[in-house]
């Protein structure tokens, strides 16, 4: 079907016109054939009919080439032919009706203005015709001439216009309907969802491509069959019929009714589907349209989505756990990084606060003596002394007395002892007891200002934290105790006062490292040996703490034993190395400087096992390091070679032994420290005590040393007129006194025999003094010597109780004294015994 304008295309207009001409010619011919009046002039009318047929033939044949204007011209010619025909027919009243055909054509096929123009042309022809034929009444003639065609033309044109509009609308509707149907058809056909139409009995009326795919059933197979038989499993068919009947009977519209169904494909596989059913009513007929959607993919997606949700939830949970664990790790790290309790707490509390998102945190520790809790550390800075709380009172007190974690919202203001909590505006607080060995050692509590409110989870978190804190607390306390033990042990290993030995003055200093560092392995010793020799030791055991301290103890006693056996220094050090290598743990290592001073010879011999070189200062500030005899540290090799070296130490000469703590500074090379030491020694006072103080003042920072500092200085004391020593009342002192006395007597120009005899006599007096002291004395004795011209006066004084002279050992001593000296006087008293002896010297020259 063509468009509306095409209905009136030129070809149709032309053919209609040809038909009009032929029909007119036919009417003319019919008039002539039938019986008619004699007025009719027949021949011209035949001619007009022939002309009309000829014109019709031209129009018909040239239909494709004609324009609208040709048709207007042709119609005007047709009107003129009718006028001539009317003229030759005669004065017949009805004949002009034939003009109606022309007008009808014009109004049907042409636009209204042109149609009216044709009507005007018809009127003009008719008017001329009437003028020529002159009817009886001029009025009738005018009415006929103008009125007849006008009225007929208007009426007819009106009717035709209506018809035309009507047909046009109908055509449009038809077209739209067709398009709509086509569109709908295409939509339904290509729809993703299956679409079926059922009649009230359940027979299939439509079945689209998606339905074919969904069920594996072609449309031509499905149409006309019961849907129930096609796609429903046997057990679902009754329900389907029941539902269809219900929808059919339901009052009101049914549109998009959703129904979940189980359907089955041709291959027997079942799947879940959703049907959206609408009831379509057209007059008496009722149809059901249903969209069917396969839900198995959707269910699968639902499953996937659910799995995704589960996975995300699991991941969130894992992240929360990880966050908590890392938070916990933070707390544990803090607890372990610091060894002292205060240092640990100072580090820990801010972390607890951060991890828990709190505004204040505090640790209260149990004061076992007072039986209450003391704020030991708080995020609010240093706690006040008064920040104490009794068990059972306040929030922390209740946590402690209950021994259980507590969570409180909006506590009363006086419930919180720590000012930090009040200042933070805490409105939610959790506290957990610190438990160790089943006892409440303290409380850790954190508080938060609004809007943060702690939950049971926070409580659990703090509880975990508290476990770590309690552990760290124990660790820190253990460490502090061990630190104290190590310090005490090391102190006990260092001589609390140096023995006063003949020809030697010595001074020593030991500075533990600044706070929080462990006790180091620095040690020194002064060992009186045979013949007045003195062993001086400075050592540094690798490692810290209790292990190092006990190591020092073992090395010290071993070295004393070897030294007293009077081995050469190199042998002593070699044995120490063997001891360290074979008996002690493999990892043990120590540096050692062993110096033996012989006051009689005025010399030193030394062995250096990996230690810093001793520093010697002689004369007026001549300083140099004793670089020789340097070997590897003890414990690094099984058979190292230790060499020893010797040098004269003039009277008044001093030697300084030290550990690296004195010269090592962070960021500075050790050479700089050694130079500073040499400079400090050069400018130091002569007295060794003052020298030590001077060195510490110059070299150790005011804040304390980073490492332990041990310092030992000794001086080859010049021999003077007087001999004065105070010695411990022990048998070991005897050899030293004799050596010192020999050295002093050599100064006094005595003969070897005189020296030996005076020494022996003095030794007897000293032996007595030692034995007196052993019977409840003060633990020391004094020996004084005076040169009085050609005589030597010796005085030995003890502070013990006198034992009466009896035959035997002691009596033998007294007789020796009397035999060897010119004059002996023993003066016992309540305070002790004094022995005075005198011997005239003949001098070395007398021999």
């Amino acid at each position: 079907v063509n468009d509306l304008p095409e209905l009136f295309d030129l070809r149709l207009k032309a053919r209609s016109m040809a038909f009009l001409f032929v029909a007119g010619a036919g009417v003319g011919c019919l008039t002539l054939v039938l019986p008619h009046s004699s007025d009719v002039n027949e021949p011209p009318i035949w001619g007009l009919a022939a002309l009309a047929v000829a014109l019709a033939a031209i129009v018909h044949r040239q239909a494709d080439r004609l324009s609208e204007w040709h048709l207007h011209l042709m119609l005007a010619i047709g009107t003129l032919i009718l006028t001539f025909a009317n003229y030759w027919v005669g004065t017949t009243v009805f004949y002009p009706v034939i003009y109606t055909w022309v007008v009808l054509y014009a109004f049907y096929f042409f636009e209204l203005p042109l149609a009216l123009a044709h009507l005007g042309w018809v009127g003009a022809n008719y008017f001329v015709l009437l003028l020529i034929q002159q009817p009886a009444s001029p009025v009738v003639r005018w009415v006929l001439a103008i009125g007849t065609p006008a009225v007929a033309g208007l009426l007819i044109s009106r009717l035709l216009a209506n018809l035309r509009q009507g047909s046009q609308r109908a055509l449009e509707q038809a077209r739209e309907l067709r398009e709509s149907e086509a569109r709908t058809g295409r939509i339904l056909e290509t729809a993703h969802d299956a679409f079926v139409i059922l009649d009230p009995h359940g027979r299939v009326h439509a079945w689209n491509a998606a339905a074919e795919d969904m069920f594996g059933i072609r449309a031509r197979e499905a149409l006309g069959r019961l849907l129930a038989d096609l796609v429903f499993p046997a057990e679902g068919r009754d329900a389907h019929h029941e539902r269809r009947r219900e929808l059919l009977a339901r009052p009101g519209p049914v549109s998009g009714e959703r129904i979940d169904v189980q359907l089955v494909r041709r291959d027997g596989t079942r799947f879940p589907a959703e049907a959206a059913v609408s009831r379509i009513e057209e007059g008496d007929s009722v149809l059901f349209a249903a969209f069917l959607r396969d839900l198995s993919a959707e269910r699968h997606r639902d499953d996937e989505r659910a799995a995704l949700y589960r996975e995300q939830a699991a991941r969130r949970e894992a992240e929360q756990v990880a966050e908590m664990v890392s938070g916990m790790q933070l707390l544990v790290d803090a607890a372990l990084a610091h060894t002292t309790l205060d240092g640990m707490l100072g580090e820990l509390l801010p972390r607890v606060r951060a991890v828990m998102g709190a505004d204040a945190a505090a640790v209260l520790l149990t004061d076992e003596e007072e039986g209450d809790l003391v704020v030991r550390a708080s995020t609010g800075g240093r706690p006040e002394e008064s920040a104490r709380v009794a068990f059972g009172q306040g929030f922390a007190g209740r946590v402690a007395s209950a021994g259980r974690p507590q969570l409180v919202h909006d506590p009363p203001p006086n419930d919180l002892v720590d000012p930090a909590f009040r200042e933070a505006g805490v409105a939610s607080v959790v506290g957990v007891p610190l438990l160790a060995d089943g006892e409440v050692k303290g409380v850790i509590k954190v508080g938060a200002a609004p809007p943060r409110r702690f939950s049971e989870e926070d409580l659990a978190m703090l509880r975990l934290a508290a476990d770590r804190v309690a552990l760290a607390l124990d660790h820190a306390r253990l460490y502090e105790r061990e630190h104290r033990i190590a310090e005490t042990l090391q102190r006990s290993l260092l001589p609390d006062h140096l023995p006063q030995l003949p020809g030697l003055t010595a001074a020593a200093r030991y500075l533990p490292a600044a706070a929080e560092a462990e006790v180091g392995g620095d040690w020194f010793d002064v060992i009186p040996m045979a013949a007045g020799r003195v062993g001086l030791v400075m050592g540094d055991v690798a490692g810290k703490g209790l292990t190092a301290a006990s190591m020092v103890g073992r090395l010290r006693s071993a070295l004393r034993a070897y030294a007293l056996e009077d081995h050469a220094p190199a042998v002593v050090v070699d044995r120490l190395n063997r001891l360290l290598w074979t008996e002690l743990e493999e990892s043990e290592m120590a540096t050692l400087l062993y110096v033996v001073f012989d006051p009689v010879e005025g010399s030193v011999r030394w062995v250096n096992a990996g230690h810093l070189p001793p520093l010697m200062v002689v004369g007026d500030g001549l300083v140099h390091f004793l670089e020789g005899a340097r070997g590897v540290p003890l414990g690094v090799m099984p058979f190292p070679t230790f060499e020893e070296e010797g040098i004269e130490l003039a009277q008044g000469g001093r030697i300084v032994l030290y550990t690296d703590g004195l010269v090592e500074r962070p960021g500075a090379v050790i050479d700089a420290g050694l130079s500073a030491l040499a400079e400090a020694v050069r400018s130091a006072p002569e007295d060794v005590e003052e020298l030590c103080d001077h060195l510490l003042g110059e070299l150790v920072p005011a804040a304390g040393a980073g490492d332990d500092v041990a310092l030992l200085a000794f001086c080859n004391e010049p021999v003077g007129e007087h001999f004065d020593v105070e010695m411990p009342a022990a048998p070991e002192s005897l050899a030293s006194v004799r050596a010192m006395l020999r050295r002093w007597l050599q100064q006094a120009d005595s003969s070897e025999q005189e020296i030996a005899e005076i020494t022996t006599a003095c030794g007897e007096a000293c032996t007595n003094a030692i034995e007196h002291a052993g019977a409840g004395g003060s633990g020391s004795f004094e020996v004084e010597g005076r040169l009085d011209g050609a005589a030597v006066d010796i005085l030995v004084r003890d502070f013990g109780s006198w034992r009466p002279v009896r035959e035997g050992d002691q009596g033998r001593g007294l007789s020796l004294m009397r035999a060897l000296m010119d004059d002996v006087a023993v003066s016992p008293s309540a305070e002790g015994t004094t022995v005075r002896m005198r011997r005239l010297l003949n001098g070395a020259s007398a021999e």
Partner: protein
Amino acid sequence: VSDLARVEVEERDDVVIARVEGELDLSSSPSAGEAIEAALPSSAHGLIVDFSALEFLDSSGVSMLFRLARRVTDHRQQLHVVAPDGDAVGRVLEIVKFERAAPVHATVDDALRTLRAALD
């Protein structure tokens, strides 16, 4: 053996020679005496204490020597002491009249000879 004194023991047939070096005073005498006693089997007939290399002797060393003499006598053994004439050690022995307890010789050979003669 001790800090100051060292004892070296040598057995020649049934005679034990104990050579003492160093210094004998209150700190070293007791242990030196114990060492010598421990080195003397009851089967031995004689003991020679050699002070040739001793640098110092005081009353405690002398007491130790007297105790040795008593013990040797109790076991029917003989004690001889060697100390060079004129030096400090010999002078001390002289002063305390040690020769009352046991003979003192100048050399080990003298002591051995005397001991063998007495044993034969």
